């Protein structure tokens, strides 16, 4: 609802200059944002494109830039994302269903709600510290893929809960009432009516949350992802590295060649992220329209 609809735009002589100046400044700010995005992405492509190849994806890390690849980092990231999805989706959606469909609207619910929105604003590195204290030390999972994935689960949980709640809230009450009227129990109503109807929204939220997890490096470093892991993780207790951490390590080196490697790694990461987002858009587009109330 912008004021364009009112179309009361006046061009009185008074204040025409300030009007013009202000509009141009605001437009300039917008263009700065767009231009920055283009320059940043262009820069990465220029730096990394010569180094990106199938070999690069299949090689192990190495001290020599021309022999280095991202195999272990890529597999590490896949492990982490898979496990994180396994833990965070049931937990997150379950919590959202409880809050929206079951919880009595009292003070406790308000408190939990407030708590979740605050958790969404906690810096991810603090989750890393929690993971270090809880999973790595107290539960003695050590610097394993499992510790990493559990930590990432905590990072994305608030995002999944908030997105799922939003999706559940968009299902109109008439659906629930008609199910109850047919004699369905609460869980039957949720499982057969409300969840299918809100699935596109929930899926979109989950995919966005997981793409956040895919790009996250800070908590993993605190939990103890290694700089150099010559093996692909094969079990939950193996050491791991991930794409963002590999990129971080390459960027931190002074040699120019490693910066090109980092750029190539970033391209792989961005391609993964873009495809995940494309899936989210596709899901929203394809299934979002099917249900109309």
């Amino acid at each position: 609802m912008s004021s364009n609809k009112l179309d009361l735009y006046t061009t009185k002589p008074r204040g025409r200059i300030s009007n013009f100046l202000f509009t141009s400044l605001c437009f300039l700010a917008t263009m700065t944002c767009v231009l920055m995005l283009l320059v940043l992405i262009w820069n990465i492509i220029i730096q990394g494109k010569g180094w990106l190849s199938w070999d690069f994806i299949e090689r192990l890390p190495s001290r020599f830039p021309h022999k280095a690849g991202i195999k272990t980092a890529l597999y590490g990231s896949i492990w982490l994302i898979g496990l994180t999805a396994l833990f965070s989706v049931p937990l997150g959606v379950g919590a959202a269903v409880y809050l929206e469909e079951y919880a009595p609207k009292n003070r406790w619910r308000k408190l939990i709600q407030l708590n979740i929105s605050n958790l969404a604003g906690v810096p991810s590195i603090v989750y890393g510290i929690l993971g270090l204290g809880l999973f790595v030390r107290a539960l003695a999972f050590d610097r394993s893929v499992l510790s990493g994935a559990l930590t990432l689960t905590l990072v994305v949980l608030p995002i999944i809960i908030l997105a799922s709640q939003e999706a559940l809230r968009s299902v109109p009450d008439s659906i629930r009432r008609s199910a109850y009227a047919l004699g369905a129990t609460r869980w039957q109503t949720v499982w057969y009516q409300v969840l299918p109807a809100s699935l596109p929204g929930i899926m979109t939220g989950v995919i966005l949350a997981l793409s956040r997890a895919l790009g996250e490096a800070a908590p993993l470093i605190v939990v103890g992802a290694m700089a150099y892991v010559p093996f692909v993780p094969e079990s939950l207790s193996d050491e791991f590295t991930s794409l963002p951490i590999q990129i971080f390590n390459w960027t931190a080196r002074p040699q120019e060649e490693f910066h090109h490697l980092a750029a190539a790694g970033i391209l792989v990461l961005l391609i993964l992220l873009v495809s995940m987002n494309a899936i989210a858009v596709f899901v929203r587009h394809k299934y979002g329209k099917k249900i109309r109330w």
Partner: protein
Amino acid sequence: MELSEAAAIKLPRSTSLERGDGLLVRLRPVYEGLIHFSLFVCASISVLVTVGIVVVLLYESVQFFFDVSIIEFLTGTRWAPLLKPQHFGILPLMCGTILVAGGAAFVAVPIGLGTAIYLSEYASPRFRDVVKPMLEILAGIPSVVYGYLAVVFVSPIIRYVFPSAGVFNAASACIVVGIMILPMIISLSEDILQSVPLSLRGAAFALGANKFEVTVRVVVPAALSGIIASFLLAISRAIGETMAVTLAAGATPKLTLNPLESIQTMTAYIVQVSQGDTPTGTVEYRTIFAVGLTLFISTMTMNILAQYILSRVGEKYE
């Protein structure tokens, strides 16, 4: 609403209606209860996470403060826990964090607010449909990528303009963190600007105000508290930002406000220690938790403040 258009209301299979005294039907209260309980557990985990954060941070920090006096921690001007002699004054880390967050706000606030105003008040719907997804891309780029850009792209430019700047400098961190928090400021502020009722704009136009006056004197002031809340959230995000700052700003805890120097933030320090092999239970190891606690308290305070402001924004127009 036609029936065919309604969401497919199919009956749940065999258990749909109370039929006879099948086992499933008799057990229904039991599994309904079990499901209710397990969903409740899922929701409680969010509370447990918060408790976990506080307990873990406090538990190790308290032990830290047995070794280091809290007064030295809060007022000391040297931070060197990994060197001998050790110094545990957090002020240099605080200073670095404030420098980066302040610099990022300096970059992001004017551009962000300008963009939000343009998108909300001036842009055509078609222009918005193009620009908003682009800003979402900006928001989806991982922070380690911004770190890379700071080192490879921004820092050389800064050193070209200011030859006295070091390879690692706070300015490049400020710029990339500023770009990182831009989308957050834009989308939150734009939402708030859009929520200013049309009647307010119409009234101002009716009084003979022009577009500029309506925007600057009516719409923005009406949305001001919400806009400030969006700034607070973005700054809190900048304080907690880690990878870009670690890569760009270096690792020299220093009490300086000169953006051309290398500094260290609280988050960058935590990364630095985590990368090394600091044995559990030593004072050095516990510094992570003490610094983490300080970080957690500062971001949490800003978030709660921002949310308090935001929760009051909606009430105004009702």
